[in-house]
């Protein structure tokens, strides 16, 4: 099994009100995510990103098509718990995801519900809190933590269930720059060191730069995908879709438009510095 997640020609629609027309939220989506891959999904609000992510741990089931998580079809009700344990989800607002009054108890909530032996739970909680660098706060009350810390506790709660894949739906939208960095660094580390497959939905293009692959959604479809370099070089397409590119990519694009002969696929500060030094 080479793929962690396989989305095969998936359609999904819903009605907001009984009398409304069906709204087609996903419209023939195909996506294969390799084991250990770090995929970022971008797209404006309403493009279908969140709907897609909620299919991956069987919160929604496709109207047409199939989704496989580590080889298990999300339609197979007997595999539901195994699927949700394999693919854990982290949401935007950390306050909605914390259930206990002590950090370590919150992290233990998942494994406790799985009926795991207390000794093992203890080990998992320690490991999970260490992984997100929150071990010092094990005995603290979650509501007194910063946004970035709370979000890392939420990630630890997922980690304690030993998932193979973590899906994060705009986990940094409510955080300040340092909180955002803490969370993104944690995600990258889990991907590199623990080999956990990551699917990250975000509006911050800078967060996509280090991904293995960027997938762009619009109107329920995947409109383009590729390495961050390939995707961000399509500045005009992204702008048409109401998306951004990193500031340096935008600057490089503007410079090219003004007639400078520089590479089209610049996504980091160092690359642009190098190009400009070459032109000098």
């Amino acid at each position, binding site marked *: 099994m080479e793929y962690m997640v396989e989305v095969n020609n998936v359609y999904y629609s819903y009605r907001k009100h009984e009398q409304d027309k069906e709204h087609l939220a996903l419209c023939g989506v195909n996506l294969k995510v390799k084991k250990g891959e770090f995929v970022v999904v971008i797209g*404006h609000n309403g493009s279908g990103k969140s709907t897609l992510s909620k299919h991956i741990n069987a919160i929604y089931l496709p109207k047409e098509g199939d989704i496989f998580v580590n080889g298990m079809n999300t339609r197979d009700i007997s595999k539901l718990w195994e699927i949700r344990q394999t693919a854990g989800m982290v949401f935007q607002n950390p306050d909605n995801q914390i259930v206990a009054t002590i950090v370590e108890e919150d992290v233990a909530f998942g494994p406790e519900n799985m009926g795991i032996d207390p000794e093992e739970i203890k080990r998992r909680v320690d490991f999970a809190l260490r992984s997100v660098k929150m071990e010092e706060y094990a005995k603290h009350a979650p509501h007194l933590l910063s946004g*970035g810390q709370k979000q890392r506790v939420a990630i630890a709660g997922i980690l304690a269930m030993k998932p193979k894949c973590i899906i994060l739906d705009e986990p940094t939208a409510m955080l*300040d*720059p340092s909180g955002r960095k803490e969370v993104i660094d944690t995600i990258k580390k889990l991907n590199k060191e623990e080999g956990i497959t990551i699917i990250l939905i975000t509006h911050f293009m800078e967060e996509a730069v280090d991904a293995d692959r960027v997938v762009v959604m619009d109107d329920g479809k995947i409109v383009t995908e590729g390495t961050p370099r390939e995707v961000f070089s399509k500045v005009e397409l992204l702008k048409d879709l109401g998306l951004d590119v*990193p*500031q340096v990519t935008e600057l490089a694009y503007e*410079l090219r438009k003004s007639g400078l002969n520089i590479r089209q696929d610049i996504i980091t500060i160092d690359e642009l*510095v190098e190009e400009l030094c070459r032109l000098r």
Partner: protein
Amino acid sequence: MPIKIKNLTFKYMTGTPFEKTALDNVSLEINDGEFIGLIGHTGSGKSTLIQHLNGLLKPTSGEIYIDDVCITAKGVDLKKIRQLVGLVFQYPEHQLFEETVYKDVAYGPRNLGLDEKEIEERVKKALEVVGINYEKYKDKSPFDLSGGQKRRVAIAGVLAMQPKVLILDEPTAGLDPKGRDEILYNIKRLHEEYKITVILVSHSMDDVAELADRLIVMYKGKNILQGTPKEVFKNVETLEKIGLAVPQVKYLVNSLNRKGFNINEDIITVSEARDAILKILRGEEK
């Protein structure tokens, strides 16, 4: 409507082991028609500060004057102050509650006791300012709108009070780039056309670099830095130390200068960087 803040200190849970100083002797002046960017990491005191400006919180010590009226004195008419100082909270769309967009925006003016004609005019104008088509949306349920639209309707509800000072607490959090640009464009227009004072609380250094006349930086309840964005973003190390950042182009300019370019350190926006780089490279070509 200048705002003067004098030695403002705010402590909560005083007299308990949990006592915390959220604002520590803050003194500030905000001039008429200024566009202020208020930045600082979570817990630095930004939200506590703005909640003092329309009387939602009472200082432990210190004073605030709005238009030379001391709003922290006893017996002050808070209703009047809240009409002059409009506060848009984080995620203001969570406060939408009426059946239609019209009724929701009209709620504030109606409570001011205005007549129906005046209310209608205000609603029209407020929706127009935030770029929501009055005829098309007035009878819709606010809950059927997109996230960005809901937020703009919520902001219109504050604008319909016709405040002289508009305070927005992270108005773009959670919006996509397009929704963000729309809101920021509306705020900018409002500031330029109606000359109202704007205080924008933001985590986006790029946005405040583009928009604000002056930045106020909060850290641990103190106002540790202030000045034009250009002045403030020169302090890269201090800002990073307190959990903030500077716009990405600023890092680029610093890197280029280390490699022997001689670009003005003031640069903080993409268009400024483009012009400066072109000038240097073309200047050298000649």
